[in-house]
């Protein structure tokens, strides 16, 4: 006997015993692992799809170009995008602001300034009427968002300055109003005014969501003819010469607008400037909190799976009381028994976890493929390594946590009590 009195059974031998016990009861093992499989798969699916959607939207925001700065009327509190909802009603951005921002003495780094208004409008051609999103914009909108025109052409600065009744329409609008006919040069009626269709957007304009269902006209004619003679803007985009110039330009814009609006206290600003970085950060915030919440829900199902493992392990320990007694009689130490039952719980939960990860990734890939097919937008398939790490880590932790109690129960049985058990 060695001095410490410890048994020499190797870890791999004990692991072999645990594997044998699980394989000896395949259906029970599979059903027990199922709870873990579902829980881990749910976590993987939530995190991967969350990551995919986040990546998609960030990719689109990025394609706007990092040189763009967005000015909206009103004040957005902190990073909370929800408070932006009220901004539509604010009328603080006027034509004079645009003139001041375009003045190189005020904002020397600005290469273009593009104001826009939004609304919805009903458009009629022949006996077809559609209600669509209206965007009244400066002529720079096509450059800023890299919008490509499939048929006809974009409107120009001259069109804007002359209040031209010209419209570039999305492909769905074109289809609904004109069917198979060529829309270019046709007149559509909006608010009693005839607008001439000068162009149709191509369908590959991922940078602006919903472009297929939009009607884009010069902001001057939108304000004057379609929105009831308003004189304010919903958004102004200012593009900087370089990405490096953005922070300085933001300060220049603030100075200019404050002077224009007679604001001395920055906390009373009636406008909000967002850089692409700000927007990405707030999208990030939304997705991180949404994904975290859904992951928490999925984690609860994993917890339930863990309780299932513990339950079955407790039943198993009771059923195998005689086996435990016999093993001890043959020389197994309490440590050997503890390790064997702990391995059984760990194998169930880690095995379940790995199957859950593979299954979860499979479901995610399928969902991404279906979403891509259904929407025409290419969803990126993002493997959430954090989700995988979390899945493995959490299932191992669950195996340990919920396995220790039954394993200790097993190990503490005295050999003679266990052998006497019927």
């Amino acid at each position: 006997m060695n001095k410490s009195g410890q048994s020499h059974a190797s870890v791999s031998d004990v692991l072999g015993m645990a594997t044998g016990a699980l394989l000896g009861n395949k259906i029970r093992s599979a059903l027990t692992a199922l709870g873990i499989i579902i829980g881990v798969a749910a976590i993987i699916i939530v995190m991967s799809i969350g990551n995919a959607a986040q990546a998609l939207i960030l990719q689109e925001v990025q394609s706007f170009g990092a040189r763009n700065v967005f000015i909206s009327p009103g004040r957005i509190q902190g990073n909370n995008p929800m408070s932006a909802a009220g901004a539509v009603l604010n009328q603080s951005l006027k034509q004079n602001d645009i003139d001041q921002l375009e003045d190189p003495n005020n904002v020397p780094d600005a290469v273009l300034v593009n104001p826009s208004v939004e609304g919805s409008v009903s458009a009629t051609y022949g006996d077809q009427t559609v209600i669509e999103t209206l965007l009244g914009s400066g002529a720079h909108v096509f450059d800023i968002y890299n919008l490509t025109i499939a048929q006809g052409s974009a409107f120009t600065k001259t069109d804007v300055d002359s209040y031209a009744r010209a419209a570039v329409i999305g492909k769905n609008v074109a289809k609904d109003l004109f069917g198979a006919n060529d829309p270019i040069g046709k007149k559509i009626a909006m608010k009693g005014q005839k607008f001439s269709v000068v162009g149709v957007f191509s369908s590959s304009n991922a940078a602006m969501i919903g472009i297929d269902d939009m009607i884009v006209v010069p902001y001057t004619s939108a304000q004057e003819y379609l929105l009831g003679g308003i004189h304010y803007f919903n958004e102004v985009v200012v593009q900087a010469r370089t990405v490096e110039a953005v922070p300085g330009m933001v300060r220049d814009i603030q100075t200019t607008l404050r002077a224009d609006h007679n604001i001395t206290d920055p906390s009373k600003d009636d406008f909000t400037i967002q850089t692409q970085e700000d927007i990405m950060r707030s999208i990030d915030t939304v997705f991180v909190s949404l994904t975290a919440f859904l992951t928490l829900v999925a984690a609860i199902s994993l917890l339930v799976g863990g309780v299932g493992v513990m339950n079955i392990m407790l039943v198993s320990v009771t059923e195998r009381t005689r086996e435990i007694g016999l093993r001890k009689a043959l020389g197994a130490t309490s440590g050997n028994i503890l390790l064997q039952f702990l391995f059984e719980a760990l194998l169930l939960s880690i095995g379940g976890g790995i199957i859950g990860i593979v299954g979860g990734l499979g479901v995610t890939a399928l969902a991404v493929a279906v979403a891509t097919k259904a929407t025409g937008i290419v969803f990126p398939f993002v493997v959430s390594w954090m989700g995988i790490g979390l899945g493995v880590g959490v299932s191992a932790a669950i195996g340990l946590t919920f396995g220790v109690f039954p394993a200790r129960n097993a190990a503490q049985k005295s050999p003679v009590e266990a052998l006497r058990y019927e």
Partner: protein
Amino acid sequence: MSLIEIKKLIKIYSDDGVDTRALDGVSLTINDGEFVAITGASGSGKSTLLQILGCLDRSTDGSYTFEGKEVSSYSDAELARIRNEKLGFVFQSFNLLPRLSVLDNVVLPLVYAGVSKKERVERAEAMIDLVGLADRRGYQASQLSGGQKQRVAIARALVNNPKVIFADEPTGNLDSKSGAVVLEFLQMLNDQGRTLVVVTHELYVAEAARRTVHIVDGRIDSDQPVAHRRIIAKDGFIK
């Protein structure tokens, strides 16, 4: 030097506050190479005595020295080691692991002893051959008859080359033919010098031993050599 020496051994079971005195001051010495039958009615305490001698349970009071060392000083892990290396067990209900093969059952004590894979398979196979089950090595334990199961259990008890084999009613669940084979085997082992302690309530099993210790109400009633020893291989076996 005596192999096993117990003095004034007392074992009290407490169940719901009611104390039961299973052993009430038992003193006994067993030397190397003996074949002792412990007899008595059921409830006399003979199984309790075997469990304490087999280091499966601890006494409430009194002393037990095994190979000159006090057993109560050992930790649970050290007792496990003694059971593993020095003791072998044969039970009335065989206690094989039913889903494991014959070979895997016999190998088990060697696994806990940390013997290398190659060596333990060789040793287990040799023991299975010895009990005449060479053609059953790969069978699941649950596929064997009662007599075959008990022979596997004997192979398992022998595989670690123990100092003592403890058997608790080894023929209790067997028909007379299988029982004869098992008893004959135990006698053969004793003839080869192995120490055997067998608990039984049946006279014919006790007659196969060399010495009987009769227990009544937790005390030794008589302790004497077997006058007319029955040699199973020669005399046969009548149940």
